[in-house]
């Protein structure tokens, strides 16, 4: 498969792994954060970490859009799903995220009309098929997903679909990274930048990381060789005393991003003054809401939502996992009270969540065996 097979070549992988081994400084411990949950998933699916020297530690960042949704926001979605006549649509993983009193899946079992969709377009199609019902799309995701929601809202407007609205919980990637870099309990040596968020926003927005915090960033693809090469590129920057944003994923990511996508996003969305992130608290200008021009398609204006913040369960340490302060297996409930089948925390829900990735690929060991 073009663009895939060549980036899964085992022999090439061993060559890059040997170059990484030759590039590490003996006695130095390196901590690199992969920002994106998709990278976390690939690392454990392909055993990328087993090819790295023991003194390179990968820290899993906040880039899983399901994992960062706070419980209060789930409760808001459930409240909308229970409104008379409403069909509530959302992505599959979102249905299993626990709120303070159950999940959307449990709301569905209790009688609410909650439906899983693969895209906002599917939600719009349901609205057109059910003109006597109100159809709400629970929009989550980073800048990768936001253009899809924006285009669907434009399409709803153009096709005059008046029974469609959106509960917008889109978030942006730069503010939480800045919050993490300001966190005193986190020491990092570099970042593996998010590949597909960068397809939309470009690599330029990450320039503040080397400029303001002195940490290298390498935007990377999702195949095992992409990730290994990104690690090598960060190591070479550190060894050479360079510190900048590099683009390993040039076959997909233009440095300036997708200008059409940025344009449609700026038309449909505007920044919220602040947005609550699970484990990270309220972060200024980190969430999107519908702009005034699209206010009539905003479910939060069309319906009444509780909007009550809810504290995370005490046993759950998703916040520390999202900040990379602890490993998933260090959480008190990992793999016991909290499993993918019965998750307590969001990191165990989505396959992009660090806890689910560890659990599903059997990463319970406290010591890594390097091959």
């Amino acid at each position, binding site marked *: 498969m073009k663009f895939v097979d060549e980036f899964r070549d085992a022999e090439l992988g061993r060559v890059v792994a040997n170059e990484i081994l030759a590039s590490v400084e003996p006695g130095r411990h390196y901590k690199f954060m992969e920002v994106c949950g*998709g990278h976390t998933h690939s690392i454990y699916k392909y055993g990328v970490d087993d090819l790295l020297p023991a003194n390179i530690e990968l820290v899993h960042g906040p880039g899983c859009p399901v994992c960062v949704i706070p419980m209060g926001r789930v409760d808001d979605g459930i409240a909308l799903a229970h409104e008379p006549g409403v069909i509530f649509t959302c992505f599959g993983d979102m249905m299993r995220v626990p709120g303070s009193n159950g999940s959307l899946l449990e709301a569905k079992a209790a009688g609410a009309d909650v439906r899983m969709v693969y895209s906002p377009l599917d939600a719009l199609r349901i609205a057109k098929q059910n003109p006597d019902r109100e159809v709400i799309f629970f929009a989550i995701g980073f800048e990768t997903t936001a253009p899809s929601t924006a285009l669907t809202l434009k399409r709803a407007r153009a096709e005059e679909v008046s029974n469609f609205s959106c509960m917008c919980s889109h978030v942006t990637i730069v503010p939480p990274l800045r919050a993490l870099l300001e966190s005193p309990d986190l020491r990092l040596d570099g970042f593996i930048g998010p590949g597909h968020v960068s397809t939309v926003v470009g690599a330029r927005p990450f320039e503040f990381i080397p400029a303001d915090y002195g940490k290298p960033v390498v935007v990377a693809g999702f195949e095992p060789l992409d990730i290994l090469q990104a690690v090598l590129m960060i190591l070479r920057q550190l060894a050479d005393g360079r510190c900048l944003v590099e683009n390993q994923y040039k076959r997909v990511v233009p440095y300036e991003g997708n200008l059409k996508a940025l344009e449609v996003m700026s038309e449909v969305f505007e920044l919220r003054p602040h947005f609550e992130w699970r484990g990270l608290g309220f972060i200024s200008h980190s969430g999107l809401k519908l702009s005034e021009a699209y206010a009539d398609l905003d479910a939060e204006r069309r319906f009444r939502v509780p909007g009550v913040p809810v504290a995370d369960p005490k046993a759950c340490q998703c916040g520390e996992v999202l900040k990379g302060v602890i490993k998933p297996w260090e959480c008190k409930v990992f793999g016991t009270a909290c499993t993918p089948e019965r998750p307590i925390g969001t990191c165990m829900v989505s396959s992009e969540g660090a806890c689910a990735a560890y659990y599903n690929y059997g990463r319970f060991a406290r010591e890594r065996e390097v091959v």
Partner: protein
Amino acid sequence: MSDHDGCVSGHCITCGDEATPMTVLRVDEARGLALCAADEDGGHHTVEIALVAPTGPGDRLLVHAGTAIASLQEASA
């Protein structure tokens, strides 16, 4: 992970940052949509193409949540 709602091929194609390579089979210019086949499993999907237009049959696209967010260019592989 097959027991996860909405997840195929070991990961969730809708929620994560990760997008999926697909090949354009047919374009509906009037509606701004394309019928595409996913590389991973051959499944057919209706895809919004406003962000990568113009596109045509045989083109490779990177698709996320039903929207093509980039064209995969042979020359830059």
